[in-house]
């Protein structure tokens, strides 16, 4: 089992969710995030003072998958979350972590069953 942690642009969230459903990934946990990377920040101006907002809004998706779903899920996310055809700086990252166990709270099931 793996835990996929994907940082994507907020406006791709829906596209990713929809695309994941197509490869039978129906469960996901979403969180607000602020990213900092190659992408340049935005400039705001208040009372004549410019200031750069260096943390940019991102969305983090966390998806626990059984191993066989890993690659399709990654491919799907990459595809659905890329801005335009060639992508843009700031489109984000996907991290894959080993997942040792998974428990469904409702039933107490464990392991691959519970994903």
């Amino acid at each position: 089992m793996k835990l996929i942690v994907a940082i994507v642009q907020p406006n791709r969230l829906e596209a990713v969710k929809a695309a994941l459903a197509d490869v039978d990934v129906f469960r996901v946990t979403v969180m607000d995030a602020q990213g900092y990377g190659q992408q340049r920040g935005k400039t705001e101006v208040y009372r004549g003072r410019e200031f750069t907002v260096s943390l940019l809004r991102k969305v983090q998706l966390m998806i626990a998958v059984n191993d066989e779903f890993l690659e399709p899920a990654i491919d799907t996310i990459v595809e659905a979350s890329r801005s335009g055809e060639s992508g843009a700086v700031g489109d984000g990252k996907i991290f894959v972590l080993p997942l040792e166990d998974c428990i469904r709270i409702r039933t107490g099931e464990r392991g691959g069953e519970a994903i």
Partner: protein
Amino acid sequence: MKTKRLAPLSFCLLAVVLFFLSLFCPISYASADEAPPTWEKMSIEQKLDTLKSSALEVGDDGVVANSNLYVETNTLWTCLAAFLVFFMQAGFAAVECGFTRAKNACNIIMKNLMDFSIGSLSFWLVGFGLMFGVSYSGLFGTSDFLFDAGDNSFNWAFLIFQTVFCATAATIVSGAMAERTKFSSYLIYTVFITVIVYPIFGSWCWGGLFNGSGWLEGRGFLDFAGSTVVHSIGGWAALAGAIVLGPRIGKYKGKEIRAIPGHNIPLAALGVFILWLGWFGFNPGSTTAVGGGSFAFIAVTTNISAAAGALGAMIISWIMFKKPDPSFALNGALAGLVAITAGCDIIPVSYAALTGLLAGVLVVFSCVFFDRIHVDDPVGAVSVHGVCGAWGTLAIGLFATDVGLFNGGGTTQLVTQATGVGAAFLWSFSLSLALFYTIKVTVGLRVSEEEEIEGLDLTEHGIYAYPPAFVNGVQSAGGSTLGAAAPSAATSAIPSVEGA
């Protein structure tokens, strides 16, 4: 720390001191007047002296000022009413801000502030003259530009009263065009509506209140405080704007219509209460005189109609959508207010309740209708001001004392009212359509797609209205929802939230 404990104690002390000090201060507010004799027993000189002490301003040297209490009281009332109507600007700003998304809050605020500011200046410079100057064959005024009332105080009061009316018509438009209109283009339009659209139509109906005379008033068209002159004119211009602009990104997707909830309903509600208050200047104030005191009757009809409007909209939304919808109830109160504006002086109270109730019902159907034909009006401005303004103007022909169809009159007045309603639609809608289209093909009317997604606050004004986390938070809702900086783009490219 020490001051913290000192401060309350010292204030206690101050309070105690205050109290004891004050006990030594003899209070003798109750005055013991000897009752003057009755009128009948007074001599002419006594009568005159009593009258003088009541109605005249007498200087220390015994000189009687050339005072005119009657006119001054009229002037005062007109000014006070104008102040109340001015406050409606705050109401519009709050309603429009609350019913739209957080990422466009500064923008809508700026539009409301600037349309009033520009309107105040341009109406004084040009608009007033076109509306109230000596009329060119009943079509528009030709004098009184750069209006100067000299030492006629009442006319200054008339100017400020008419200015705030004009600004009301202008500000209606911003709501329907919210969240996607270029700021600079909106300003251009503001000049146009306050200089051309509103004053010229106004001159047709109300020119006679000053130096003018209009063809519609000539035919007996009745619109006491402006259901048509102000609200419909604004509403139909708003309709033209919403059509030329097109809907917000993500609002319509094929046959599907999506909700884009506002970000601050309490603010919108506060706005509605402020508008309701302002309307007590708008309608009763349109007497511009205290004579006869009919403003009191008008206050009653105005209030009852608004109440019935809120009730009507709540009930209908409850029946149609299973739940009493706050945004419709708020729209309903405004609908009731707009509708009674035309006939507030001559529609009996019970019919005023009916006028409002039906306006409340109408506004819900109208909002649903415009949504269905894909006219995206975020705050319901077209329905509230355009449609209910028309309804209220026609209601005179139905319910007004003497002239109303159901109240002893025939259909004559109804036909006249319909003429006015039609003229308003043709004039405002087509002229505004032309103008918005011209702006669109020249300097551009709408912001770019990215700017709209990012939010106008950041792209047009450089700053958010609230902490970014509030503006941008992941919404519980999947897509086209509240305040999200970038909600709709994605949803327009892929199956909808509901369908995913």
